């Protein structure tokens, strides 16, 4: 099963343990995580299901291509990283 891990900066807001989930796309894998914590969804995606502008998702070493639909495929042994861009002062 693909494994999903989140930026440590999210832990200030929600519990985000590394999780192995079912899913053939980034969308399916993330939805499986969000089913366990519906409020976590709003930190990563907006209400339209789009990846938030300052959040990035990598599958292994590659940034996903479909920030709108999250249709990028994931395999059984893939690792999905939910990261943030850095900004502010």
């Amino acid at each position: 099963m693909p494994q999903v891990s989140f930026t440590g900066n999210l832990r200030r807001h929600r519990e985000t343990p590394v999780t192995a989930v079912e899913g053939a796309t980034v969308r399916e894998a993330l939805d499986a995580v969000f089913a366990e914590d519906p409020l976590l969804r709003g930190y990563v995606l907006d209400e339209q299901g789009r990846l938030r502008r300052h959040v990035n998702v990598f599958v292994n070493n590659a940034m996903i291509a479909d920030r709108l639909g999250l249709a990028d495929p994931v395999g059984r042994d893939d690792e999905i990283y939910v990261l943030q861009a850095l900004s502010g002062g």
Partner: protein
Amino acid sequence: MTEGLYVASRKGLVPIRRRNRGWEAGAAAFLGEPVSAILRDPRDGTLYAALRLGHFGCKLHRSGNDGASWEELPAPAYPAAPEPDAEAPALDMIWTLAAGGPDRLGEIWAGTLPGGLFVSPDRGETWSLVDSLWSRPERGEWFGGGFDHPGIHSICIDPRDPERMTLGISCGGVWKSDDRGASWRLAGQGLRNAYMPPERAYDANVQDPHLVATCAASPDVVWCQHHNGIFRSTDAAETFGEIEAPMPSVFGFAVAPHPSDPATAWFAPAVKDECRVPVDGRMVVTRTRDGGASFEVLGRGLPERGSYDLVYRHALVVDASGERLAMGSTTGNLWVSESGGEEWQQIDAHLPPIAQVAFV
């Protein structure tokens, strides 16, 4: 008088309490996070705090124990498009929160960017977009004032009849409902802008009322600090009259109406829209006690020179006594007056930029 207040700032929600030694800041909640709005529901004492996280979106939290602990609630959400849509609306900021009428305990309203009004019937557990306003064709002409999108920053619920509501929208004018939001009509005739072509100066749908606020004891009296001046209504925001040449300037964001005297209100003027600093670097509050016919300039205790302080629309407030005011600035100064604005005391000079101050 009220013995506490909250400061909603760029880096947390700061509680301020009045002790024997004076006003003291306590430990911030949501340290490091931008707080865009705070509400204490006067009906049950519940606190609501809206956050606008830089990376992770807008959040809503609730406290039933005066801020000792907070729980996260679902934030208002725009309806999801049926297919992935890059242009579909998403919540950008909760700009203001308002408690519903006394007859509907738990009803909370939220004004947001990009222009949606939301209502919760159950203390913020669930939210729905008020489609009767969102679907108005006039919304297509609204535009952002200082933000990328238009937003609702003023929600006034008539204490005599909570069916009657008045909204202030930048830039979308003043809207009213007589049936608790089931239907809406554009009000605010007489508001004037100088940023549109001359023939549209009085177009009510493209006005930028920076704040719309009512006198609690006489809710038909409505004050508006507008982008282009100060306006006052005596017919519940149906029509406004422009105040002639308020001193020292017409520009500002905030207005604090006296809770019982409909002729009295306070303002925090700045030079003008393209130079948002106090006139001559001297921080002042102005007060009218005759419905805007004249203004007193009140500056005792405020910086006399070198001030860059700007007071945002929700950051000048007066409590129910009409004597105690609080004011916070974008420079992180917090002042309190115990004398109707005659004299000010600096409570803190090192706060983050302040979006809102609220007596609790």
